[in-house]
């Protein structure tokens, strides 16, 4: 569907229907003393080239040089975006964050989202996926709410301390006004969620564990599934790096009831942290509890394939205050992007990219160890890992950003005060051996 501005003639004919002379007449019902009469305090409008140079000046304040080397992950990853992706998703028909308001006339958009849902279920090994959410944090918060609603006797949700710190904050924001609370599952000295501590937790409605976790380590999800089963609560997994499932066993194979994830790695630019793409998938049993949009495939009156918005009866415009969520949109364009990305790289491509990420991360870790860093854990990881930095690294890191356009890891002090001088490093396919060797030399 195209979005075109109204011409003067359009406006005139609409006013005629409304029985008004001009646009201002439409606001006659607002008392004059409530209307702003003086002009707004805004700077003078700029010409196109003035505006462009103004925006370029502002953009130059960002540290985002074209040829930067990014060794940071932590929920936002630097991946190569094949040229076909911006080309296809730039089609004006796709340019919306929403599912269309007249969904059934937008068969192309619905089909795109349907394909997206299908590929997400294949990637995660789940039965059903929604048409997307804002980001992993909001999708995970919705998953926690599903668990809490299904277990009316408990008002707590157990969330791993190695779930992304921002996601834990978002969960808190979503659930605390409803009287629910998070209990954090501590982590072990191996950098993994402490399953023993979880076993001792009672009165919980669900268990949420991120894998690979915030330290990059791969959790043994089967152990958490066993605890969830023993406690008869829902098992929720989350992830920030979707490409990990090119190599790792998917959450569905561990029996996850709900999976929330970040889809930014699937062809979406980092854009200084957002917008991302919230993936939310569940078992068939959870179908009617999943919030947000779902696209279904059906037959039309002629027996031809067609796509529809389905299960909308659960949404707030019909169910009002009984709706399971007030989410009624999705990140349409980013979902489309992820669908194009997954279709572009395919089953073999995603495995190859994932392997490259892992291999480069292993090489980066070994190189940093030789350069005087200390490995925080000896635990399997995907493309991120935690290192204790030698003295003086913070100054070197700052200089690397300014002088070499190199982002050497993220300091975890702020999120885990007990981990002084610990840095989270990441290597993706965009990093070359030369880049890694160069970094190791600089930080020595």
């Amino acid at each position, binding site marked *: 569907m195209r979005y075109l501005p109204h011409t003067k003639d359009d406006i005139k004919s609409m006013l005629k229907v409304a029985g008004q002379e001009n646009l201002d007449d439409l606001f006659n019902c607002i008392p004059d003393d409530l209307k702003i009469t003086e002009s707004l305090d805004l700077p003078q409008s700029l010409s196109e080239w003035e505006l462009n140079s103004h925006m370029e000046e502002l953009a130059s304040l960002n540290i985002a040089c074209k040829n930067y080397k990014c060794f940071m992950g932590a929920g936002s990853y630097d991946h190569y975006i094949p040229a076909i992706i911006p080309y296809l998703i730039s089609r004006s028909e796709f340019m919306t964050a929403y599912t269309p308001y007249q969904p059934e006339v937008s068969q192309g958009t619905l089909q795109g989202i349907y394909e997206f849902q299908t590929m997400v279920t294949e990637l995660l090994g789940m039965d059903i996926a929604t048409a997307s959410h804002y980001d992993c944090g909001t999708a995970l918060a919705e998953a926690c709410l599903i668990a809490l609603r299904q277990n009316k006797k408990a008002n707590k949700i157990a969330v791993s301390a190695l779930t992304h710190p921002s996601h834990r904050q978002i969960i808190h924001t979503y659930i605390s006004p409803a009287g629910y609370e998070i209990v954090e599952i501590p982590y072990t000295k191996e950098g993994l969620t402490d399953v023993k501590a979880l076993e001792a937790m009672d009165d919980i409605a669900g268990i949420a564990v991120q894998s690979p976790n915030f330290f990059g380590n791969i959790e043994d999800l089967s152990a958490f599934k066993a605890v969830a089963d023993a406690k008869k609560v829902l098992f929720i997994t989350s992830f920030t790096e979707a490409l990990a499932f090119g190599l790792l066993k998917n959450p569905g194979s561990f029996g996850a009831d709900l999976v929330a994830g970040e889809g930014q790695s699937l062809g979406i630019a980092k854009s200084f942290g957002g917008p991302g793409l919230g993936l939310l998938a569940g078992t068939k049993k959870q179908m*009617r509890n999943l919030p947000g949009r779902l696209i279904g495939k059906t037959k039309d009156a002629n027996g031809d394939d067609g796509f529809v918005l389905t299960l909308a*009866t*659960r949404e707030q415009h*019909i*169910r009002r205050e*009984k709706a399971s969520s007030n989410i009624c949109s999705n990140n349409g364009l980013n979902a489309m992007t992820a669908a194009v990305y997954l279709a572009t790289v395919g089953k073999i491509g995603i495995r190859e990219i994932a392997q490259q990420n892992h291999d480069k991360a292993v090489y980066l870790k070994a190189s940093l160890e030789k350069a005087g860093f200390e490995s925080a854990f000896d635990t399997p990881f995907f493309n991120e890992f935690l290192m204790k930095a030698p003295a003086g690294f913070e100054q070197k890191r700052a200089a690397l950003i300014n002088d070499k356009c190199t982002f050497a890891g993220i300091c975890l002090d702020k999120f885990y005060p007990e981990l002084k001088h610990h840095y989270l490093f990441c290597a993706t396919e965009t990093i070359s051996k030369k880049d890694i060797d160069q970094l190791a030399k600089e930080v020595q």
Partner: protein
Amino acid sequence: MKEINDLSLPDDVKYTKSHEWAKLSGDIVIIGLNDYAQDQLGEIVFVELPETGDTFSKDDEFGSVESVKAVSEIYIPISGEIVEINEGLEDAPELVNESCYDNGWLVKVKPENISELDDLMDKGEYLNMLKG
């Protein structure tokens, strides 16, 4: 949709304001959705029921019925424990449309206080309520 006079409203069940019916069978009360409710909802595609062993107080919400048009909550006409649910509705929710007083029943309840049934309406009272 049916005219009020065309509704099937058996004499041997009791009716609620929220359009459920309840019928005593031995010491168990069978509960379902009445003809007016199923007709108003249209084609029913999913019935969400409680679990056996759950207990409810009269007028509690005990599940929901989803049609192609809407989702409606269902309210229990009598306090007690759920002793059986109609498992057939999982695969064939349309039974509520086709046979709301028979194969389309929802749950069976072991009542706490059987006299609560007396608070419900009989056919005549229910019809008067519908006619306003």
